[in-house]
């Protein structure tokens, strides 16, 4: 009967959709686990002892990213590539976390802002939608903002570890980032909210720099701060 047939037909779509989502969820779970592992590796930079280990920790993280790439490659096989945004919500969160981690590694290595291209390369994905599974610009920006917040923590902990130089460099970096974000017209969305948080990170770092500068700690280190 016609109506029944129609509903069976639609049910077919729905079931297929649910299967795809179930598959995606599983891979995403593994990715979240990976992201937590990389984070644990990188967390050690906040420890007083961790500062000199930065290169080795970054190398360790880079290794773990190769597993991430394998998982993302797996993820790509789970759904038709043109339907990226249909399932976007499933991996959006973890992709932002991974972007943050990639950006953090790059910052720790070179004190520069990771580009969207670099993140895409680290994660084994594309920059433009047309080419395949890609990194949405909002997700890239969200990841960068998570890193900004991590850097404000790093500035604080650098001082504790006796490194008075790093906070000033972080300050310059974050200020440049802030200038960049001011160029954007954001909607009242999660990204906007996160960006509002950046102001507090900037403020926190400014306070650290201030604390150093009134104690004459900044000046001396500033001279030695050209790397």
């Amino acid at each position: 009967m016609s109506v029944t047939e129609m509903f069976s037909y639609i049910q077919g779509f729905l079931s297929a959709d649910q299967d795809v989502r179930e598959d995606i969820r599983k891979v995403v779970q593994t990715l979240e686990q990976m992201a937590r592992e990389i984070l644990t590796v990188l967390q050690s930079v906040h420890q007083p002892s961790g500062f000199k280990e930065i290169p080795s920790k970054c190398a360790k993280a880079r290794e773990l990213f190769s597993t991430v790439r394998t998982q993302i490659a797996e993820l790509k096989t789970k759904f038709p590539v043109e339907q990226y945004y249909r399932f976007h919500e499933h991996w959006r969160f973890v992709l932002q976390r991974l972007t943050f981690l990639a950006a953090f590694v790059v910052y720790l290595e070179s004190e520069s802002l990771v580009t969207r291209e670099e993140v895409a390369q680290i994660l084994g994905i594309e920059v433009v939608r047309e080419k395949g599974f890609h990194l949405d610009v909002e997700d890239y920006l969200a990841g960068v903002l998570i890193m900004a917040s991590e850097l404000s923590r790093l500035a604080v902990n650098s001082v504790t570890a006796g490194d008075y130089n790093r906070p000033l460099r972080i300050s310059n970096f974050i200020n440049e980032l802030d200038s960049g974000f001011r160029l954007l017209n954001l909607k009242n969305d999660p990204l906007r909210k996160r960006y509002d948080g950046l102001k507090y990170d900037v403020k926190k770092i400014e306070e650290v720099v201030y604390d150093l500068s009134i104690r004459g700690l900044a000046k001396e280190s500033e001279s030695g701060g050209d790397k």
Partner: protein
Amino acid sequence: MKKREDAAQDREASSLPSSPVIAAFKVFQQELDTKHDKYERLIKISRDVTIESKRTIFLLHRVTSVPNAEEILNEADAKLDGVRQKIGQIAEELRGEDLHQFHRAFTPGIQEYVEAASFLHYIRHRSLISLEEINARLVFIGTEKGDIRVSADAPPEGAQVLTFQVTPSDYLLGVADLTGELMRMCISSVGNGDIDTPFQLSQFLRQIHDGFSYIGNTGPYEISKKLHTLRQSLGKVEDACYTLRVRGSEIPKHMLADVFSSRTTLMDPEEGVV
């Protein structure tokens, strides 16, 4: 800004366009604004689609009270052609994009269109329009002037063909709303002394109801809310049939014949018992 001017100048210097960060963010700004603008345009088109679809539905309700039904159906078809034109604009905006990226902007309009198109289809054919049938009429041909035209027959040589695919979810949500209109049509029919349509409608609505029951919670989230309304509509239609039946039981013998002759063709043979 009076204090620590040197620091401030540092910052200013760094925000010169020459900075790669700033350069990158200018690109992001462009990208975000473009997307946002497109989203906004789609919302506006969707609102137009909604309004015109709703008006088509109102027009179709007139069919039960006027003699020239076909005229109204043709008028509705013409109105829906206009709506399809608008959907063509949506398709145009989505050319080369991932439909799902902007889905939330136009889903209300598309659902309302499905409601209107399936209502017209039901009135004409007394059957449920299929998703394919819906989509088959959403094929557009872009002319060289950038205009969009709803495809009638084969596209002219070299013309750009553009399609719009209604998602199964939007189709389902539109059909769920259709049931409300069918219920209204049923009550109107009783009020107009038409005793065949209600029984037909109750049959059809029950099929749709059973279909939704079958799909249950595997469908889109919004369905569950509409399901309650659907059940109420079905109840109203069943009550109407019940009333007709109960009253029909009182038909005096001498009137039975002609009432019977008009109904027996469409109704279940068992009905004749009275």
